[in-house]
């Protein structure tokens, strides 16, 4: 995959539209052939849609598959012997979990891409790192949850890691205090899932924790706003509250999913999610599945050139969002930038089959 090697040499937000589209189209055509040749269920889908072995000339033309398929089917484009890790979605809202099979190559691509993206936000130096979670979530190394995989992925960018929660999600106040004293005056890296940061770090720190000056820290977080919405906390309120409590200014949310780990969408200083050179976004109109213009709301399709061991390179998500613009975000980063508005509204069940649903 020498092509990818070249791409890994680029700055993650450096390519203007024309160059990036050409790069993506080449890569996605190559991946389409690879997955059609190596993954039988995927080949059957391509054949059913009548697009097997077809070459496409624009990202919008490529066939996408619904992300939910990873829950009901084992989709892999490598032999079982090549699989080194299986990722699962956390599955908090649904009993079925996605299963994503990684081989050495894909796993390496993900790590590399993530590093390139993160360096753009935190620099190349490894920083003393607070992980706002319990060490328990990373214990089983072969079967990772999305949470565990996210933590291990991000842990690479820090040093002197401290998991600040114990197994019962209690803030380890003393250890936190020691850590802060030890690293006084240094730039710190914090990572956690949005809800955990809010519930077990912010709230505890506010109530009983040590006085923490985090004005020179970067917080990276992800995981969605569903639980915080119940408390009427949105991204702006989240940042305001943290800033007020401990002076932290650099807070970056990111959007991404276990089905496309690595090529994540970081929130810039303007509050926009950005597509790096490894990935792209298309907004689809649910009335006819056409690609929508910037500013129009629809279902989010995500494209990534990293997945080689499973056919997850072009996925239709169940999230709703809109593209705000391309190559012209005031933050200076190139590529499409967008907003996520939540989940596709659930259908009201109709039919004889649901007598007893509330």
């Amino acid at each position, binding site marked *: 995959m020498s092509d990818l090697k070249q791409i890994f040499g680029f700055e993650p937000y450096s390519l203007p539209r024309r160059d990036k589209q050409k790069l993506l189209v080449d890569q996605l055509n190559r991946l389409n052939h690879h997955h059609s040749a190596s993954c039988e*269920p*995927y080949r*059957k*889908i391509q*054949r*059913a*849609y*009548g697009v097997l072995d077809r070459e496409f000339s624009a990202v919008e033309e490529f066939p996408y*598959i*619904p992300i*939910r*398929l990873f829950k*009901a*089917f084992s989709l892999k484009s490598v032999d079982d012997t090549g699989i080194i890790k299986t990722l699962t979605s956390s599955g908090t809202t649904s009993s079925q979990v996605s299963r994503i099979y990684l081989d050495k190559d894909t796993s390496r691509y993900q790590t590399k891409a993530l590093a390139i993206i993160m360096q753009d936000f935190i620099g190349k130096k490894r920083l003393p790192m607070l992980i706002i979670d319990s060490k328990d979530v990373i214990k089983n190394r072969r079967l990772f949850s999305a949470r565990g995989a996210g933590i291990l992925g991000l842990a690479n960018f820090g040093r002197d890691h401290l998991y600040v929660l114990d197994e019962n999600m209690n803030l380890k106040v003393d250890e936190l205090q020691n850590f802060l004293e030890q690293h006084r005056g240094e730039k710190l890296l914090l990572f956690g899932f949005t809800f955990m940061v809010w519930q077990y770090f912010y709230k505890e720190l506010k109530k009983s924790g040590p006085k923490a000056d985090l004005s020179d820290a970067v917080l990276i977080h992800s995981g969605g706003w569903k639980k915080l919405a119940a408390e009427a906390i949105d991204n702006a309120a989240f940042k305001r509250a943290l800033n007020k409590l401990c002076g932290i200014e650099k807070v970056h949310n990111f959007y991404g999913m276990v089905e496309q780990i690595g090529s994540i969408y970081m929130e810039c200083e303007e509050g926009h999610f950005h597509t790096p050179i490894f990935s792209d976004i298309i907004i689809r109109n*649910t*009335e*006819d*599945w056409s690609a929508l213009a910037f500013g129009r709301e629809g*279902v989010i399709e995500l494209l990534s050139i990293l997945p080689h061991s499973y056919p997850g390179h072009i996925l*239709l998500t*169940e999230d*709703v969002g809109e593209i705000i613009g391309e190559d012209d975000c005031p933050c200076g980063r190139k590529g499409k930038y967008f907003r996520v508005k939540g989940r*596709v*509204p*659930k*259908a*009201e*069940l*109709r*039919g*004889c*089959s*649901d*007598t*007893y*649903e*509330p």
Partner: protein
Amino acid sequence: MQYEIIAPHGASDEALQKQKVLLPFSEVVLEFINAVSGSILKDATFRKYPELVAMAFWMRKANILKLKEAFEKQKGDRLWLGRGIVFHIAPSNVDTIFIYSWFISMLVGNVNIVRVSSASGEQLDALIGVINKIAEREEFSDIRDRFMIVRYEHNDEITAHFSSMCKVRVLWGGDETIRRIRAIPIGSTTTELVFADKFSFCVIDTEAFLRHDKMEALITSFYNDAYWFGQNACSSPRLVVWLGDSSKSDQARATFWEMLEKKVVEKQAVFPAAIAVDKLVAECSVAMSSTGSVAIESKKTSLLNRVLLEKPEDINRDLHCGGGLFYELKIKDISELAGIVSPKDQTISIFGLDKNELKRFIDHFLPEGINRIVPVGKALEFSIIWDGYDLLREFCREIDMAV
């Protein structure tokens, strides 16, 4: 035990239990049904619910009198009486089913308790409004004393309570629901009617279709069958079987789907966005699990999805999510239906097929499924023969007079 009595005002289960049945087809019942029918047909607010208008049309006096005549002919001088209290557990969102179930039981004189789901919508509210208004009228006191519509969230205790007092329990629902409710006991002399989740399909003779001179009307009929209730009624066609030689079938299919697509757009059918995604999941899943070839036909609107299958075993009835998704199969001879029909199949709506040929097919192949065969356009029409039961008969008991 918390349940809400939504009709009639002031009802209670203690009062209901004291009531005797009425004689079958009593005048007061016919008048009541006629009044409900008239109210719906006259009220402009109901026009946006074609399903309710169709139901009101079924309830009009002329039709009920026909039922009465047939019932009396069948009965002769035998003694048939209602069984007592009938407890109906209605499906949550085919809003008209509870009315059919209740009214047919009421026609033979039974006392009725109807449970509607707590997730019910505006159609149900509008219907309940009409029923309450009519039931309040002085002349309908005999009706008012003999029914109760209750609404409650899934609750085994309440279901057990009503189950213990009824003489017939009527269940409409999916396999899981039915399993759940059947675990709740009924009285030793209580009978039970079960209407499980079903799958239905349409068979079209391609030559008959291609030479048909009223294609537009046929398409409208098919549209109504498939798109009312969001293709989620048990009798909504979800598979279209094309009978004829392959090239003729393709010609017929091209015309048929193009016209239907136009109709769907013109009628402005709307489904939630999640249904459009569900259909993609279903069509991809069918393709991935297939043993034969699968062709997902391209579409201009997400309201109409088509999946052409080569092999009947690739029909996945459980994956079908409604909302305008059609499996298709081509067959050359009617005998090939034998490989398609499953025990889950309820209604076959047909166009251009010969009745005697179908009879021969059934006598020869003795299929485990199929409860109705109707022309295209009548798939959703309710009938007193449903899922193999003669409903009026099931709601009665016979006193064997051997003297």
